[in-house]
């Protein structure tokens, strides 16, 4: 493999997206080529700069509330039988330069509903509005769906963490008295997977410890909950520590589940399964 070929594959190599055979070829070349090693370092530095330092523009709380209200309303399509154009679409097709007109008109139209939604959102955690909270211990596929939904709650909530800290010695004691079990998590976070904080959650009918880790721009949710009575899902076998686990995907999210004694552990994120596995190994105490 030439230097030129290797450099075309460097990003995929660094992201773990190459086939095993191709990755071996790239690794073999890199081992003996200082110039391509530098190129790999440059790619890694560029990725790090983009992931860690590129300014991020999250949606404002007001926009999220407007979106929630809009989606909760009966749809125009349902009411009229056809999708009516929005003001923005109409303005655009008419050639109007008023880019912000739709937003302003919609804000005025939604003001009463928005006020009600603000009160509702202030009083009731977003998670409580979601279906699937109640329910009995269920079949394996539903367990995967449930933990993914729990992860989405973390992502969607304005205040997903009850205790925000990168210090495990603040986060772990916070659970004492709030759970009827002690979530045994040996990993305190590191540079690759910093601990962001913790919260209380639910998996079906039982309380769960929710620990949130970061990985670059990604959020990784760890749920720890009593395993008794839960049917285990099918998936690719994945050993975590001395425990047998399963790896699977659901709605585009990677999910890794394992049991340790009476407790079940679930890691969920939009990172790939290999990355999730590295974190699992640290949580399970098998990696330094």
């Amino acid at each position, binding site marked *: 493999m030439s230097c030129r070929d290797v*450099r075309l594959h460097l*990003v995929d190599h660094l992201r773990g997206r190459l086939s095993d055979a191709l990755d071996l070829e790239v690794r073999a070349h890199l081992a003996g080529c200082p110039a391509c090693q530098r190129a790999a370092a440059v790619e890694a530095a560029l990725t790090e700069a983009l992931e860690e330092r*590129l300014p991020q523009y999250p949606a404002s709380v007001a926009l999220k509330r407007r979106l929630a209200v809009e*989606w909760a309303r009966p*749809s125009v399509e349902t009411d009229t039988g056809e999708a009516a154009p929005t003001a*923005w679409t109409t303005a655009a097709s008419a050639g109007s330069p008023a*880019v912000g007109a739709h937003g302003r008109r919609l804000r005025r139209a939604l003001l009463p509903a928005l006020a009600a939604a603000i009160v509702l959102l202030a009083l009731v955690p977003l998670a409580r509005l979601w279906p699937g909270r109640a329910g009995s211990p269920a079949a394996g596929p539903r367990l995967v769906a449930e933990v993914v939904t729990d992860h989405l709650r973390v992502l969607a909530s304005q205040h997903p963490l009850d205790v925000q800290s990168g210090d495990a010695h603040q986060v772990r004691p916070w659970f004492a008295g709030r759970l009827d079990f002690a979530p045994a998590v040996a990993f305190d976070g590191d540079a690759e997977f910093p601990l962001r904080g913790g919260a209380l959650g639910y998996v079906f009918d039982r309380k769960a410890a929710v620990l949130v880790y970061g990985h670059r721009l990604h959020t990784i949710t760890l749920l720890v909950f009593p395993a008794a009575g839960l049917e285990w899902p099918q998936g690719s076998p994945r050993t975590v520590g001395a425990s047998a686990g399963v790896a699977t995907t659901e709605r585009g999210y990677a999910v890794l589940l394992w049991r340790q004694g009476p407790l079940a552990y679930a890691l969920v994120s939009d990172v790939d399964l290999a990355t999730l596995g590295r974190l699992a190994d640290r949580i399970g105490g098998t990696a330094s």
Partner: protein
Amino acid sequence: MAEDAGRAALGREALAYADALHNLARYLTQNDADAEDLVQETYARALRASSRFEPGTNLKAWLFTILRNTFVSLYRKRRGSPVVSGLDTVEPVGLDSADQGWLLDDVELDRLRRVVAEEIAKALGALSEDARTVVLLDLEGLTEGEVAQVMGCAVGTVKSRLARARAALRLALRDYAR
């Protein structure tokens, strides 16, 4: 009733991506008001098309597809410029992306590691809209196949666009670092 429940569930899941969608919208439109309107229109379109979403497929990629199509069909058209070109749209003579932008020594590499947020944002902003989109979708963790779906092009095209965009970023940041 079941349809409404399904739509509501989809909506709640879709809201989890509001930050990611707004981030891309902000980098495409380059101002806050247009970014908010673009995201709002994206959700309005997604809501109308919710019955066509296939459960089990990647909702995030589906929403990004709607956002990009909305941007292309409405924003570019209104602005009267179908495509905004950038640093990455012209292939330098005699070179391609595989040869571009590699730093010459460890000092330059070290400087790249210390470029600040404004410089990275400026370099990204100098790329074409499509290149910016590919870079940001890649950062969001979409696979090349999913990026191809969003962009409406072949996976090979995504690979080459991403390589060219990263080469342009390396070149720009190398200049900043000097």
